């Protein structure tokens, strides 16, 4: 009897310890070169968009043999700013990359934390996707022009559903409003916790319009349950039968970009090495497959080009957030 109990206890302990070990693939260890061991920090919970992006890169790096050992760790919280402040504290670590993207700029401006993306070492921008403005199938509006006309007359009565405050969806609603002559703070924006909830609000005809990533609404648009009025890409995308905002005469474009940054204070050759690793990843067939599967647009950028992009985006987002009255 006693033996059996001990074996049960040992069994339970083993499961627990193994699970814990699997969960917390520890970030500790020596600062070996990034080629032998690379840690990718996803500043989001397992399953989120950034987590998926990090794990795709991990798989690509491993399979193509670019890096011997790549790990993903999750540091979720506050739109990625918890992860950001951790990364900034890892001054000089040259075997560490963090997933970043458009959302983090908004979140770090919003949360008023002292650390910002400017404190990190930019490495690369890899993939973009774009947001669509949709209306429910029962909506009276068939084109962007019709919607804008009604919206200008009564901004309050045309609520727009989208992701959390400071998200790409929110910023886009403000930008659209400003461009068509509605004060961003007068836009009646209803925040939901994600694309799924925005979809629910469209299906129940709660809000007049909704904004989310095109991929999340693609099938609903094809099936006709939602009508897409405009997309935020600079030009028409292949296989996406949705007019851009620019085509409809509204000069707005915005991308939900994703990329990588490294901790501050790393040596120039360490930075070049990381840029080389990501560049090699970008050239693999695995990555091409990743882009295709996720329906992401290739937006590869490194070096000065990416630095300049980051700076420009930060200014634009900070201005918008101020105008939105957050």
């Amino acid at each position, binding site marked *: *009897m006693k033996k059996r*109990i001990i074996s*049960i*206890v040992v069994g*339970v302990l083993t*499961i*627990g310890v193994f*699970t*814990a070990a*699997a*969960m*917390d693939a520890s970030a500790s260890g020596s600062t070996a070169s990034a080629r032998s061991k690379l840690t990718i920090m996803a500043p989001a*919970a*397992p*399953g989120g968009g950034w*987590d*998926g992006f990090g*794990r795709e890169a*991990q*798989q690509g790096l491993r399979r193509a043999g670019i890096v011997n050992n790549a790990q993903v*760790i*999750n*540091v*979720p*919280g*506050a*739109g990625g*700013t*918890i992860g950001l*402040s951790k990364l900034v504290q890892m001054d000089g670590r040259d075997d560490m990359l963090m997933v970043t993207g458009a959302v983090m700029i908004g979140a770090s401006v*919003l*949360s008023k*934390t002292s650390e910002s993306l400017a404190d990190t070492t930019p490495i690369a921008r890899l993939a973009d996707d774009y947001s669509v403005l949709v209306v429910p199938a029962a909506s009276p509006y068939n084109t962007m022009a019709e919607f804008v006309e009604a919206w200008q007359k009564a901004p309050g*009565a045309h*609520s727009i559903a989208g992701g959390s*405050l*400071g998200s790409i969806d929110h910023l886009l609603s403000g930008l659209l409003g400003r461009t068509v002559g509605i004060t961003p703070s007068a836009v*009646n924006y*209803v*925040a939901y*916790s*994600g694309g*799924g*909830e925005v979809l*629910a*609000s469209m*299906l*129940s*005809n*709660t*809000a007049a319009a909704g904004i989310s990533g095109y*991929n999340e609404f*693609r*099938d*609903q648009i*094809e*099936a006709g*349950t939602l009508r897409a009025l405009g997309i935020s890409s600079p030009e028409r995308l292949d296989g996406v039968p949705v007019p851009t905002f620019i085509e409809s005469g509204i000069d707005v474009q915005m991308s939900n970009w994703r990329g990588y940054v490294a901790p501050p204070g790393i040596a120039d050759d360490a930075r070049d090495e990381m840029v080389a690793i990501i560049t090699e990843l970008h050239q693999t067939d695995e990555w091409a497959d990743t882009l295709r*599967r*996720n329906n992401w647009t290739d937006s590869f950028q490194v070096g000065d080009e990416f630095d300049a992009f980051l700076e420009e985006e930060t200014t634009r987002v900070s201005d918008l957030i101020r105008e939105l009255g957050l």
Partner: protein
Amino acid sequence: MDQLTHLLEGFSVALTPINLLWLVIGAVLGTAVGVLPGLGSAMAVALLLPVTFSLDPTGAFIMFASIYFGGLFGDSTAGILLNTPGNSSAIATTFEGHRMAKDGRAAKALGTSAMGAFLGGMIATTLVVFFAPYLVRLATMFGPAEYFALAAFAFVAISSVVAESVLRGLLALSIGLALAMVGIDGPSGAARFTLGLPQLFDGISIIVITVGLLALGEVLHVASRIHRDGAVTRVSAGGSPFLNWREFRKAFPAFLRGTSFGVPFGVIPVGGSEVPTFLAYGTEKRLAQRRGDTDFGGRGAIQGVAAPEAAGNATAGTAMGALLALGLPTSATAAMMIAAFQQYGMQPGPLLFERSADLVWPLLASLFVGLVILLIINLPFAAVWAKLLLVPKHYLYAGITLFAMLGVYAIASAEMDLWLVLGIGLLGFLMRRFSIPLAPVLIAAILGPLAETELRRALAVSEGDLGILVGSPITIALYSLMAVAIAFTLFQGLHARAAKRRALVDSVR
């Protein structure tokens, strides 16, 4: 009966040896993560996602499906045995389940919960196969005003039954509301009760609150009484997990009642299975009071385990329907699975059944097979798990503490969560010490934010017009039901008081 032919074809794919193997692996894994406090099936799916890329899509989906249900089979185990539920979906089962365990019927409680999970899941999945298009229509009828009415209704329906003293109940409710308010407020972006700490911006996870209040609170409570309660009566770990005919007759209607609460909730995204499990528990408690059943709240009643557990899995079953037919993720796990499906080029939504019929039907079939396998795995295991109670208390509770902390750390690898869970654990201990009920805290923490956000969304959309709150048949029906429930409770209370007075007068004579 087109669906039936499709389903049979699905079975022929799902029942190949290799797919059965994935199914069993998924079932065991799902149950295991479900048992550990703080770990849920959402996390298991997330971690396994990269691994399954090497499988063929059918095998991967089949594995996901069994993990999905497995987590729900496992989560009530720790709650029943040790009063330490690991996930919020198991809270309602814990109340009566642990009482049964204390009464020496641990194996029976676990068996009932496995049966409940099985029946709830089975009925809900069957409904999904045949009536998915009608079920999903329910989702399109729910806007913010309807959610608010639902939350208000649930508050009234549940709160009145879980607290014996009004004052203590209200105190517990306000603690729960305060805990739930921590974090960045969604509609306005304002930080509330965060003390300026970015770690608190996302609020306190309901898992941290559950584990702290129930698991650690219980550990501290047991520790504080260890030399005072004298010779502790040994909890019997024996007993059969199988129900005899009399018990089955008691439990069966409860299974069905629980399922009927769970089914509609899976389709509407109101934060998973907590609300229906609590509603099911509340109903059983009310029914027990009416019957004059003293087991309920005393020795532990089998219905109190059966109904919430069936409700939980029924929710999961129809949630899968909403996910497939509508592309609407109604729980964290469902959201994870959408991501997984998309990776294989299968887009859940209105076009799914036309476009990916070769994947969907095996998936649905594997849900049925998965439930059967889970029942086969879990029923005999109930007796083994119950033996856990034979471990001496000091080892057992040390182990719980360890696992609780590990589980909480695994949610976000955040140190802050560990301090929070300790603080909330201490709170739970003090609440036990002063006999303040714990359930209202959890109900408030789950329903409070729901009611608040939806009310504000409704008013934002209507530009402040309160008329929207009673502007649809659903809201009117819910408020009427609520009014009837309140009137009934008041009437019952007056009636009982009058009866007591008469009895007093009689005894004086």
